[in-house]
């Protein structure tokens, strides 16, 4: 019932968002594995990228995911004090506190990002993170702004389009 109501409210009911999840090997990946072996039902929109630790996740990974066509990003790792490498998640917490704010300042809707702590025993929490993020991003629609960033701005004509041949590189394969 709840999902029907949500699909009526959403402006992009047919849209299947692409979501990339950067997860740590020791907690969230294992938790996601548990969710799978427990046969929990969750949205198939999330592609998981396994990394040793959330401390390994460079903010560039997120930028790169958006560039590559992701509509949303999940970053998830061990709860504080549970890090396999003692402090990787504490470092990541500071870094993402800054990066999330930077994304917001640059005009990226931070509702497209989810940061969470999911332990190896929290298969149910992982399912909720996946489902909530998928529904949230589905409502926001495709991240066309980011993917279309490299299109020319209206009113800006590229040299080739204006008919000026100066500086046009030779066709590939010509000697």
């Amino acid at each position, binding site marked *: 019932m709840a999902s029907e109501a949500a699909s009526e409210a959403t402006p992009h009911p047919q849209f299947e968002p692409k979501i990339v999840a950067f997860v740590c090997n020791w907690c969230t990946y294992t938790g996601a594995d548990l969710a799978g072996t427990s046969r929990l039902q969750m949205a198939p929109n999330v592609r998981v990228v396994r990394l040793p630790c959330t401390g390994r996740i460079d*903010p*560039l990974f997120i*930028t*790169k995911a958006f*560039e590559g066509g992701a509509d949303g990003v999940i970053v998830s790792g061990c709860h*504080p*004090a549970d890090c396999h490498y003692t*402090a990787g998640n*504490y*470092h990541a*917490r*500071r*870094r*993402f*506190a*800054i*990066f*999330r*704010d*930077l*994304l*917001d*300042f*640059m*005009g*990226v*809707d931070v509702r497209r990002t*989810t*940061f*969470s*702590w999911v332990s190896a025993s929290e298969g149910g929490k992982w399912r909720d*993170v996946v489902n909530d993020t998928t529904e949230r991003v589905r409502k926001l629609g495709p991240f066309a*702004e*980011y993917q279309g*960033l*490299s299109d020319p*701005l209206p009113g*800006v004509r590229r040299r080739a389009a204006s008919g000026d041949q100066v500086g046009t590189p030779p066709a590939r394969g010509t000697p």
Partner: protein
Amino acid sequence: MNELRELARKLLGDGAVKVVIGYEEGPRGVRPVMITDPAQAERLVFDARCVHNLAAYLNPRRPHLTRLGKPAVVVKGCDARAIAGLIRESQLEREDVVVIAMRCGGVVREPTMKPELGPETVSPRCGRCASREPKLFDHLLGVLPPAPPMPAGDDPVARLEQMSVAERWAFWREELSRCVRCHACRAVCPMCFCSTCVADKSRPQWVETSPTPRANLSWQMTRVMHMAGRCVGCGECTRACPSDIPLGLVLAHVARHVERRFGYQVGDDPSVPAPIGAFKTDDSQEFIL
């Protein structure tokens, strides 16, 4: 100024340093100069046109300068923060440099301008300066001038912060569409010291090299992330930018965010750890599920 020339002459004459990095009168305003001969110390000047951050010459990316021998550097408060940053991050030994700190009453926007400070000519970064009298120095010269006259009016960073997300996106898209990826912002930065920049890596290529808004956004976000909690606010990237992109706005916003969140301000004490690279177990995490 005579005080500065006298000191430079003495340091070079005694052999305490091999080179004094300072400012001289050039054909178009003030420019950086490296003095190795005590007789040339007369060339040194210091006034409100000395906008360059000379700490950039101590950066380990420029080994050709340190090969001259031990340097003395003429610094303002903002440049002293950069030297403190390099020491904090083990890129420079404190005893390898003689810091000649100048009490500073603010600088003008461009070194080619007249050395007269007014609300229209003063560099916007000088308004929030907390180190007009540097605390990191071997020699502290000059008398503390009055605080610079800042233009009345709104704060561009706060104005951007109050915009909607979509408005900010449009603003940065427009600004970043002008970036030609000359990397002058990186070259001029005293705190950018990696021998190989992530933006130059091609296997894998993390940051696209062509100057499209998408690649430019990625480049600037990467640069700003690397500057978080480290940027000394010297404004050199904004000044060096040939496309006049207001890079300082992002850096200022992140600096304010870091201050609000971690209570950290970039200062000139190298023993205070930077917020990135340190942590507290009870850092707030309201954004994490």
